[in-house]
């Protein structure tokens, strides 16, 4: 494909797109940093040095570190099952995997309260066992896992369906067992897609607000994640604090995004090779 010279109409469209992008994405992001540094670097650093802010960062990283691997394994297993096998209920499973995308995150949080809360279905049982799920790190993890469940599976299902089962069948006729086939043939063929899905899942796990807000109870230093902490500070009119913590969140997102772009770039080359294949 050769690049065509830009027509006036095309230029206008590009300008409109850039303007919209600037207004909707770049400007708000810049505002975050601007507000955070409004009272100078000293105030910014003081706000970040706050122990509660550190606790929120630790919790956010912990939740991501638990829910992302869980959903990576689940997504891989689900995509493998759906893409490589025919079985009754297959389309139902696909729909179930999509469900967390289509329900509101608040509901995704609320279901755990209804299930494990003091007046929930399993509440009395949990109390007897001495396990607290709601207003606890466990609840935060559960809510995050539910909300981020589809990312890896959604990324892998089309990729695995497109690749089919020819290579796996060839591996079996060559004497490979099921695990060998999975780790030496199936997994290497989807590794870039898997990484991409994991990054998307991670971004959402760290940034999730709605579901986590319902189950966390907003206990400072204990069950507050970064997004919740930003809200609390903002509601207390601590704007520098709120935006300073927000820059940390934005920083995490930007790192994830940079990784994603780098992967996408490599992934594109691989996909092209696969298509030629």
């Amino acid at each position, binding site marked *: 494909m050769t690049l065509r010279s830009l027509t006036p109409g095309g230029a206008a469209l590009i300008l409109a797109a850039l303007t919209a992008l600037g207004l909707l994405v770049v400007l708000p992001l810049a505002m975050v940093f601007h507000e955070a540094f409004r009272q100078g670097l000293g105030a910014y650093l003081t706000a970040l040095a706050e122990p509660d802010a550190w606790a929120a960062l630790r919790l956010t990283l912990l939740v991501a570190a638990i829910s992302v691997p869980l959903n990576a394994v689940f997504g891989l297993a689900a995509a493998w099952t759906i893409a490589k096998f025919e079985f009754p209920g297959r389309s139902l499973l696909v729909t179930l995997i999509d469900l967390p995308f289509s329900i509101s995150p608040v509901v995704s949080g609320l279901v755990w309260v209804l299930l494990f809360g003091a007046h929930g279905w399993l509440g009395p049982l949990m109390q007897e066992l001495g396990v607290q799920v709601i207003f606890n790190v466990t609840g935060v993890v559960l809510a995050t896992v539910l909300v981020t469940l589809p990312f890896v599976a959604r990324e892998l299902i089309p990729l695995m369906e497109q690749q089919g089962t020819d*290579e796996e069948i*060839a591996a079996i006729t060559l*004497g490979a*067992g099921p695990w060998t086939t999975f780790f030496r*043939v199936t997994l290497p063929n989807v590794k870039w897609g898997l990484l991409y899905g994991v990054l998307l899942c991670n971004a959402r796990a760290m940034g999730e607000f709605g579901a986590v807000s319902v189950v966390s109870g907003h206990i400072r230093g204990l069950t507050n994640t970064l997004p919740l902490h930003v809200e609390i500070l903002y509601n207390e009119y601590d704007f520098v604090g709120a935006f300073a913590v927000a820059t940390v969140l934005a920083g995490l997102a930007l790192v994830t995004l940079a990784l994603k772009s780098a992967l996408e770039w490599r992934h594109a080359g691989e996909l092209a*090779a696969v298509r030629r*294949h």
Partner: protein
Amino acid sequence: MPLIVEDIAKRFGDHVALDGVSLQARQGEFLALLGPSGSGKTTLLRVLAGLERPDRGAVSFGGEDLLAMDARARRIGMVFQHYALFRHMSVAQNIAFGLEVRPAKARPKPSEIRKRVERLLELVQLQGLGGRYPAQLSGGQRQRVALARALAIEPRMLLLDEPFGALDARVRRDLRAWLRQIHDETGLTTIFVTHDQEEAMDLADRVAILRDGRLEQVDTPERIYEAPASAFVFGFVGEGVQLPGEVTDGVLSVAGWRSPAPAGTPPGAVTVSFRTESADMLPATADGLAARILTLSRRGGSSRVTCEIGGQTFTLQAPKSLIAPGVEVRLAPHAVIIHPK
């Protein structure tokens, strides 16, 4: 007979893919499974490979019950139509795969694996390409890698599923001769699935013709061509004329032409077949099947004509003399093949 297939049946839902197929192959034999698409030939191959479990029947190889073993234990090399090479592995890694996944006790030493990969690359004439990836090879090269990969496990039998189906005509012809040569060198019992009758007749020691999940005939290419077991086989393996006819009192009548029926032909409605190259074209005054010439194209020493016989159109070779479009002629076949309807 090392390979004995007995009464294999397989259905997928309502579709009967195989309906009681029995077949045998000698050690080192090159057997082609030939049939139109949907005739069950690929299903039969997948049953042999262990990729499909038949509903009934038995398969043994060298006295061993193959159906009792799963695919990975059968040591049967398989080559697929769309190559099925591991796309993230180099050519050498692809070929070595079957050796490297063996349990530690049975696995050759890395240096031995390397040596064997080199030998196989040489056998399939791809020396020096071991470091390439499948995406960097042509279709013909990929299929040769796939064959080398299948041979690497020192298979007891080689199965090929339309191996040249995705290649263009020229490459197909080259690879065909080369495959036969590899077969003769390795001495492996080879089963080859194709829907291309020319490929099957060219390549195989014997051809098994399948139709709707049943075997129509298993025979040498010569016998298949000259003594087809059914009207279907006749029509599938070459050009010819096929017309409805009738045998009464030892006389065959077809499209208004009467001739003595071959001895022992039972009376009744029949299908009459003959090869167009074994029929003489005579003037309209002679005895034979009435034919009217529609078009002709001259090519070298003979012409190809399309003509109408008994309301059907056929293409055949004809001498240059006596023909022009619209001319009435008589066709006198040297031998007719008669199958009951």
